[in-house]
């Protein structure tokens, strides 16, 4: 049998190997978007793809700088962000409250679930005409559209979260005489929080999808509006700036929510 010299040395090498592999994986994650941009730049500049439809990333960046300097970009970002944040909160807060009630009280759950199941498949965007009639062309209609699409994943995940709480924790609360209010705040809310946050994460993604489409259809400002008007005027560089902004904000919100998740769930 071949005798390896030093057991500690062997494990140290093994550990180094794993470290290197980890570094390689991180490197790949950072590299993949850059790689895509590089290919795009090359294809566009060499004329292999039509630069009128796919302007090279460097050109998009300089357009981005121009729009930023003129203040136009800031204006659109501002109105989109307001709508997203307001609509998000307007969807998430009732979603959590109604979800907790449904999870805790079976009669509420049985009364509301068919309604939610029936309403959920209707895309909020298909309701936009009705929403425009009720809430007008102003900010209200956009905020309500987003709230409507955020609400459903949040409420469904919150119910699932409450229902999934191990029954032994309910027994503990009952045995130690928890009041209705304490039961709500100390058991149902923290117990369902992990699954609820997954729903909020999903809602966030849907909010972005919805805002762009809603602004394309019925707005005079916002990133979606900018994408649509640029496209109509064949200003494709401007259009790409809008698309990249959406992707950037989606990524940013995901990171923020992950951070919030870590902060709110130290016990996981």
């Amino acid at each position, binding site marked *: 049998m071949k005798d390896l010299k030093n057991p500690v040395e062997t494990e140290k090498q093994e550990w180094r190997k794993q470290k290197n592999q980890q570094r390689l994986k991180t490197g790949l994650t950072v590299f993949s978007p850059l790689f895509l941009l590089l290919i795009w730049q090359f294809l566009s500049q060499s004329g292999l793809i039509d630069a009128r439809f796919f302007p090279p990333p460097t050109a998009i960046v300089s357009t981005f700088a121009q729009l930023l300097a003129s203040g136009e970009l800031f204006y659109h970002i501002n109105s989109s962000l307001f709508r997203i944040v307001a609509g998000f909160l307007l969807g998430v807060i009732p979603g959590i409250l109604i979800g907790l009630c449904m999870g805790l009280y079976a009669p509420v759950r049985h009364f509301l679930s068919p309604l939610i199941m029936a309403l959920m498949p209707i895309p909020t965007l298909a309701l936009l005409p009705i929403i425009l009639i009720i809430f007008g062309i102003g900010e209200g209609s956009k905020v309500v559209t987003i709230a409507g699409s955020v609400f459903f994943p949040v409420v469904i995940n919150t119910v699932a979260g409450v229902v999934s709480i*191990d029954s*032994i*924790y309910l*027994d*503990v*609360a*009952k*045995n*130690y*005489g*928890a*009041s209705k209010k*304490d039961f709500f705040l*100390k*058991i149902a809310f*923290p*117990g369902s*929080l992990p699954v609820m946050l997954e729903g909020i994460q999903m809602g966030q993604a849907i909010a972005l999808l919805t805002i762009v489409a809603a602004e394309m259809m019925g707005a005079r400002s916002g990133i979606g509006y900018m994408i649509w008007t640029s496209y109509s005027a064949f200003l494709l560089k401007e259009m790409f700036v809008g698309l990249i902004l959406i992707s950037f904000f989606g990524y940013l919100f995901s990171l923020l929510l992950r951070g919030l998740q870590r902060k709110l*769930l*130290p*016990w*996981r």
Partner: protein
Amino acid sequence: MSRNTKIVIRDLTKVFYKKEQSITAIRNISLDIKEGEFVCIVGPSGCGKTTLLRILAGLEKQSSGGFRIEKSSMHRPNQSMVFQERGVLPWLTVRENVAFGLRMRHLPKEQIQERTNFFLSKVGLTKFAHMYPKELSGGMKQRVSIARAFANDPEILLMDEPFGALDEQNRHILQEELLSIWSETKKTVLFITHSIDEALYLSDRVLLMSAQPGQIVQELQIDLPRPRTLKDIRANPDMAEQFLAIWQHLQTEVQQSRS
């Protein structure tokens, strides 16, 4: 030594009914437990011992019969339960878990603080007070559970196989700790186990249960002086006899349930 009766159980019966089928989990259990007594219930699994405890804990309603827990003070809760493993709330820290019962009763802050600290140090968890249960071993989690129950200062303590999931060494350490806290607080304890050693080591009285329907078929007085050691039990010929008696009872019960 005549002590007051603390728990009176009369003709307690629980039937589970489902789809035209009924199973009698426990039938006509009558029982008196004295103040400060440590009583173990031993029986084969599925004999309804947990059902009995859950009825006393207010988690299940009896089908007929009744029970009474004598009150010594208006401010004391009737009972607190130490659950099988997993009874510790994962989203609360060790300290918050121990304080849970007191917080649910909305006692003054200083009092909660003081009692929590006292029982944290009793079970040796002061250093771990800020940790979450996921960072604790199984034995430490059960210490949290025990501290939570004692801190609540109830009239009686109910324990549902609290050490069932622990390894032999840890189990014995926790048994010792439990006895030491118990001897200081003089609580009345009803303890469920299927370990004969555990029952002999801990209790003043052992009740044997039979399965389906769950009934108390025999009771054994354990008169060994306290504090006891495991060696006392192993060395004592009477205890060896008791052990065999219980063993034989369990054996026949298990065989009956198979045939």
